[in-house]
């Protein structure tokens, strides 16, 4: 639990952070709840940490032109307790409230969670279901990447060295929900399903269904999404029953065998869809 020696600098602005990160080996740190445990186990050995947690304006939840923007260093607790989110997009707040434990939620940030992309983290599924834009700034300037293009594989995301996530942007959706089977030690998801629906007259018009914990990275389930279109509450079970078929390389670990995890996928997808639909 003792990391190798590392340097530390605190960035004063986004540009300052990008400049500092551009130096070799620099790694951004905000809440540190993904990175520091790895460093303590010597599984990650960055030579320098660039602390972005106090950059003015990088944290906060704003509504702008029908979209909601969450700054990268906004903590899970801030998201879980946001009145704006609870009202307009409750799914992201409820997912935040189920992350880790109180200490993790008080320090961990949404930008960190998404950049790190733990295969069982909650937010990757949430931003996929919301079809969010990931706003990134780097040496070459700013760019926006769709969540659906951002998560590419096992701890593999569309970030170049020196890139910094600055915010997450999405159109709020009320009829969305997150349902999760907790791993009781870490409270990561054994299976976590994030669902956002277009609803008309009690029926599902369109659906975005995303899954975390089940495979190498968070993914969308287009087959289930298609099957859900046009369904009412009584058609959900049938529409999601084959959800696991869409999931490649189902994870196996101490906490869940392949069988069990596969069986849990439709259960939690269904629960999320039902709750999302109930939100109308």
């Amino acid at each position: 639990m003792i990391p190798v020696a590392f340097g530390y600098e605190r960035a004063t602005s986004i540009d300052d952070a990008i400049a500092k990160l551009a130096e070799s080996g620099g790694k951004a740190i905000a809440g540190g709840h993904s990175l520091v445990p790895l460093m303590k186990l010597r599984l990650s050995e960055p030579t320098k940490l660039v602390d972005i947690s106090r950059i003015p304006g990088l944290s906060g939840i704003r509504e702008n032109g029908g979209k909601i923007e969450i700054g990268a260093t906004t903590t899970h607790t801030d998201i879980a307790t946001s009145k704006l989110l609870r009202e307009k997009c409750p799914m992201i707040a409820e997912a935040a409230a189920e992350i880790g434990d109180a200490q993790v939620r008080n320090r961990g940030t949404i930008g960190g969670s998404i950049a790190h992309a733990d295969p069982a983290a909650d937010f990757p599924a949430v931003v996929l279901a919301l079809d969010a834009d990931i706003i990134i700034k780097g040496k070459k300037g700013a760019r926006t990447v769709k969540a659906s293009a951002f998560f590419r594989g096992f701890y593999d995301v569309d970030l170049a060295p020196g890139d910094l996530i600055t915010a997450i942007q999405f159109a709020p959706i009320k009829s969305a929900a997150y349902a999760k089977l907790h791993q009781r030690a870490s409270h990561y998801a054994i299976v976590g399903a994030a669902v956002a629906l277009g609803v008309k007259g009690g029926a599902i018009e369109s659906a975005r269904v995303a899954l975390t914990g089940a495979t190498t990275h968070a993914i969308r389930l287009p087959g289930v999404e298609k099957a859900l279109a046009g369904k009412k509450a009584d058609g959900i079970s049938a529409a999601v029953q084959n959800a696991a078929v869409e999931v490649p390389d189902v994870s196996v670990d101490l906490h869940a065998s392949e069988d069990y995890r596969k069986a849990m996928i439709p259960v939690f997808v269904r629960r999320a869809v039902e709750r999302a639909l109930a939100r109308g």
Partner: protein
Amino acid sequence: MTTATPVLPKLIGERVKRREDPRLIQGRATYVDDLKVTGMRHIAFKRSDVAHGKITSIDTSAAAKMDGVEAVFTGADIAKILAPMPIGTPFPSPAHHAVAVDVVRYAGEPVALVVASDRYVARDAADAITVTYETLPAVVDPEKAMTGQPAVIHKDFPNNLAVALVPSGTGVAPDFSKVDNTAVDKAFAEAEVVISQRMVNHRLVPNAMEPRGVLAHWEPGKETMTIWSSTQNPHILKTMIAAMNGLGQHQVRAIAPEVGGGFGAKINIYAEEYVCSVVSKKLGLPIKWIEDRTEAFVATTHGRDIIAYVDVAARKDGKVLGLKMKLIADIGAYNMLLTAAIPTLTMLMANATYDIPAIRTTLTEVFTNKTPTDAYRGAGRPEATYFVERAMDMLARELNMDPADVRRKNFIKANQFPYQTQMGAVYDSGDYDKALDTALKAANWDGLKAERDKARKEGRIVGLGLAMYVEVCGLGPSSSLPTGGWEHGQVTIERDGRITATTGASPHGQGNETTFAQMLADQFSIPLEHVTILHGDTGIVKQGIGTFGSRSQAVAGTALHLAGVKVKKKMAQFAAAMLEASEDDIVFENGTVGVKGSPAKAKPFAAIAGYAYVPVPLPAGLEPGLSDEAFFEPANNTYPFGCHISMIEIDRETGEPKLLKLVAVDDAGNLINPLIVEGQIHGGLAQGIGQAMIEEAVYNDEGQLLTGSFMDYAMPRASDFPRFELSATVTPTPVNPFGAKGVGEAGTLGSTPCIVNAAVDALSVYGVKHVDMMLRPEKLWRLIKHGSQGGRS
């Protein structure tokens, strides 16, 4: 003038807030890691990453060259200055080197160490040591290990038997020379129903909030060793450090500063304590080692890990005629201080709360390539409780009886105490019917049953569990402990009438600074704030054994009280001289010392204390000063007991169990501080429920601990529990003047079986008769999906 003097409250029995808490919760306490001694160096250990292997080479050259590294020691180097570590039980034991020589026997065993200028350099240097192994087959399954497969771990212990089969119970001579099975065989021959079940009480990682830590300081100029350690028993540490360093006990001072929890795992005297002491002596430097959490998972002893084959012989009316319990304990790679003795406590408590006429237990202890086990909160008694209470529940189910009724049918009755068990224990006092009745009433048992049945009709999987327990506490007479079973206390009344008292108990969460102060404040009728309790420093506390086995109040509290009696008598003699009265008429009241019937004569407590230190004139036959000590050796252990009830619901789709309700009735005899008692019970419940529901140390076939961090080993959080509903009955013990029995471990006894009983009750609709802990959701999901006829799961 008649002003109303405020009367000091009587403190015994009051819910006084812990005096320890402000410093602990504000980060103002001083732990080993907070200590600094000029010239201090740091040790980091290189530990084995294989579970079983021959060391073929160790290359320390890169480490030795690093800036800040002062010395590197291999196992062979340490063996030259430190003999193999002793154990505290009378069982044969293989040589156990503090740092492995030639062979490693569990992943995490030290193989070398670095002494460096700071902790970071030490860690880097330890990582720079290269060790190669010839890997040997890892012995992981204790039942296979008993056949010598897949390897023999210690060459002089064939079939990996640390303790070959030891019998106990009905018809067994105390020296095991004769085993008469007549009564047990008769019970099973006459049985109308026999229940047989293999059960596993799995392995746990204790995980005190503060990992271990040591600072050893040999002072060449003084020829003395001071050792600070996060330990439960500094006096035992002092004895062992002296012996292993070739020193007299007068040359060693052991100090347990603030200790952040022990749970039994800080009783053992560890390799790191010995190593720091011998390295300090060798180099003439203060040496510090602080365990990190990764190390703590593998280098600090584990708990439980015992398999039982349980057979119960009974009549159809529920009366138990006989009990057989074949115990197989997986003790890991080595015998530690008390390792071998812990499962013997499981045998000792096999009678549980029942008047069982014939019992045969056998115990086999087995070496495996895992971290060694030792005491863990409850230490042997939760295991006995679990096995017997699961079996009683299975009997109730088999006979279609209410679990409460089958227990009541077999209870030792209140008029049978003191009760000689089949296992050699003499239960001091008890009223098990009353504890059961109180729990049934507190839980509204019939109402809960109706609620469960209604839930079942709705298709929910809901179950109720009940468990009784009795525990052996207040350890104990010297015949039951190799260290001696007494405790020591000293009470000094200072010149200003304040009291400084020392106790041989070494509290690390038990709240004795509060409870002992309550006792002494009442004894002398002075305010609580005028009493300080010192502990944990052999330079200050003359003698002691330590804190374990729920013994502090019953044994150490009594020792302090008896020391107080002596001092009070002497103070009364000074008061008699000063007040010109008879010693027999002296009364201690409300911060004063006075004469019975003459209130005007009363003097402030401090005035008498001052007189005792400047005694002009010195009363005839008295020495100056007010300080005295006492050793208390109890005549027997104490046997607290209780009844726990739980309700759980299992998610039909996911198998996730949820604890809906937990009612605990605990009888710890008379209570000094019910608030602290409740805190102890809450902690015990959390650990007992944790074992049943979420905590499990899991090894793979290579002997690697898969649950080696908090990412995979679930420590219970407050959010895992409903609000505990606590009640108490009070059955004082005759063993000590307070009638107090002990409560530190109690919560772990009843809670674990009552949770599993509830799970089996819930799953009984699927034909499930038994499920082993922990209640992993996937395991329960499979039972729901496929059903079970019981047996191995």
